[in-house]
């Protein structure tokens, strides 16, 4: 049975286009223009994944509220913010509301599809007991490549999908410097330099929350980042 993707977006053209695109890729789509109708529909039946815009008709931060309400309905439901806003403040707020990832609208459909399928895979695997495991171990770091779960010194680190991909890109070949283009390619994002910098900063902070002595991600100025072992 096709997965249901809910699209909440106030611009009718974008909403219809995304709905069509997702349908062409084999998903079942339910599209909503505002928070009220979306929430009413979610209460009767939860989608398998939700794509939310932050600014909804009449509510500049309607997407954040909707995300919080949706998270209250289901802890496991994958939620992706897809928005025109790209300030660090919005990214942090969105992720704090419990979203799994945050994409700006200029990301393009391939990047969006990569995330949607990855999140579905993770959701499926979390539901079933793992049959086979694909774990990447780098010293204290362990990355579960199937479920997109990272842990440091055996303690889980709560990374978004984008962050997970960034960590994976850097940590796969310790000691190698990964430049920004490589990072963007592997994390399926198209952003400017300073966004990469703030992503890395957030990742460091999340690891430091688990282990204050964490210093495994090195900045090589002008070149990129490197995993220290």
């Amino acid at each position, binding site marked *: 049975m096709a997965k249901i993707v809910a699209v909440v977006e106030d611009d009718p*053209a974008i909403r219809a*286009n995304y709905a069509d695109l997702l349908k062409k890729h084999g998903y079942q789509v339910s599209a909503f223009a505002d928070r009220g109708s979306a929430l009413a529909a979610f209460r009767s039946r939860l989608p398998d994944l939700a794509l939310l815009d932050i600014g909804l008709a009449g509510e500049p931060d309607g997407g954040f509220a909707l995300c919080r309400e949706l998270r209250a309905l289901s802890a496991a439901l994958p939620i992706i913010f897809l928005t025109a806003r790209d300030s*660090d403040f919005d990214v942090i707020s969105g992720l704090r509301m419990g979203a799994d990832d945050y994409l700006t609208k200029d990301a393009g459909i391939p990047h969006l599809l990569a995330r949607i399928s990855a999140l579905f895979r993770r959701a499926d695997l979390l539901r079933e007991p793992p049959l086979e495991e694909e774990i990447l171990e780098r010293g204290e770091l362990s990355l579960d490549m199937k479920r997109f779960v990272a842990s440091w010194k055996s303690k889980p680190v709560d990374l978004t999908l984008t962050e997970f991909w960034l960590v994976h890109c850097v940590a796969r070949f310790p000691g190698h410097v990964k430049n920004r283009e490589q990072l963007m390619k592997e994390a399926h994002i198209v952003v400017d330099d300073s966004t990469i910098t703030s992503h890395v900063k957030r990742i460091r902070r999340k690891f430091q929350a688990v282990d204050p002595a964490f210093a495994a991600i090195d900045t090589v100025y002008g070149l990129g980042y490197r995993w220290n072992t």
Partner: protein
Amino acid sequence: MRFGLRAKVALVALVLAPIPWLGYRYVKDMEAVLREGQEQALVATARAVATALHDRPELADLRPGVAAGGEMERILKSLGRADLRIWIVDRQERLLAITGDLRKKAPEERPPADALEVFARWLRPVTELLLERPTEDFDDALPESQISGAGEVRAALQGMAGRRWRSSTDSRAVILSAAHPIWSGDEVLGAVVVEETTNAIRSLSDRTLEKVVAVTLLVFAIGALVLLAFASRLSLRLTRLRDEAEQAIDSQGRVKKLLAASSSGDELGDLSRSFSTALERLAQYNAYLEKLGGRLSHELRTPVTVVRSSLENLKMTPLPDEARVYTERAAEGLARLDAILTRMSEATRLEAVVREAERERFDAREVLRGCVAGYASIFPLVRFSLSLPESPVMLRGAPDLYAQMLDKLAANAADFSQRDEPVRIRLDEKGTLTVSNSGALLPAEMTGRLFESMVSVRPEGANEPHLGLGLYMVRLIAQFHGGEARAANREDASGVVMRVDCPVSS
């Protein structure tokens, strides 16, 4: 020659200069009137003496060369007055009798009546230079020549009253004489001559002139002081306004701080207020320009997303080959639009980052080494040379922002670098970073504005979109590090030097 406001106002004060001249004219007129009066009085005195002597038998007793005695002496004494000299001549113009003295006995000095007089007396050493003070020390001799042949005597002997002005023999005093005939019946027996100096009038007019000088000097001094104070205040206010207006806008045209509008109600207050308003508008406009990029990129994202998602939908639909060409072109255009939007939002995001970023101490040399090593792969066609000091250059700020700033400077230099000469990156111990490239020079009028948002001097028709945000970001980051960014042409006009001064953190 440039005159300050104060000098001009002082020149205006010269209109006061005619005051002493007018005073002098007035005193001279007054003196003339007084002399006229003195003449009349003297003539009247002569007539009175002559009338008293009329038909007196004692007159016949008078002999030339013999002093008058008895009744005659009494009469003459009674008619005489202090500082008056009376003499009598007979028909042969021989001196018969003389009484009185032209010289004042004791020139009295009244105590000063008011403050002005005190001041006038205090100024006397100065006024002495201008005025000839009447003296009682003159030669009052009455030579024969003044008796016989003198006009007024001759007139009197012919039966008419006469008068005459003459100088004393030593010319130190002016003497006024009036003559009147002495009648005996229809016959003129002789003449009475009354003499007086003009010293009384002259000392009166001198005193008045003294006062005029004193008043003039006082008015001058007070007027000049008031005018000077007024002009100083005006020029002080204008200078302050000019300084404030100059400081309000820095060399890069940014409004640093607003002028505090003056609350005074005059024209200068108006000027200050309109300056303040104009600066405020300029600041608003600058702020609007700086936000424009972010706002535009945000507003454009939605329509761009519509176009992108539509194109992506089209790609998945079977299309004739002809149509595919157009969708590809549309996709190319979209990619360029995306690049523009990314640049614009990069600057806006940097503004936010700079506002909130935490500062740490770091060695700028390490950042430079890493960055310049990386440029070899990013700009394969351009060579870079790096020169660093021996000791660490510790700055206070964010190393990744510093790196970002260097990226922008390097990209800028690489784009403009034309000859084989490498782009020279140099850091000195004081934290001054220079990035110098050979190539096209900066237009003179743009050097100050280059670091503003949306200002670019790149030639038209470049492949990549340029919004003039790179150097604006350099400025933002330089300011974050407490520094300043400047652009200038090389001294030998072979290229351009970008210079960022960041203070070293101790």
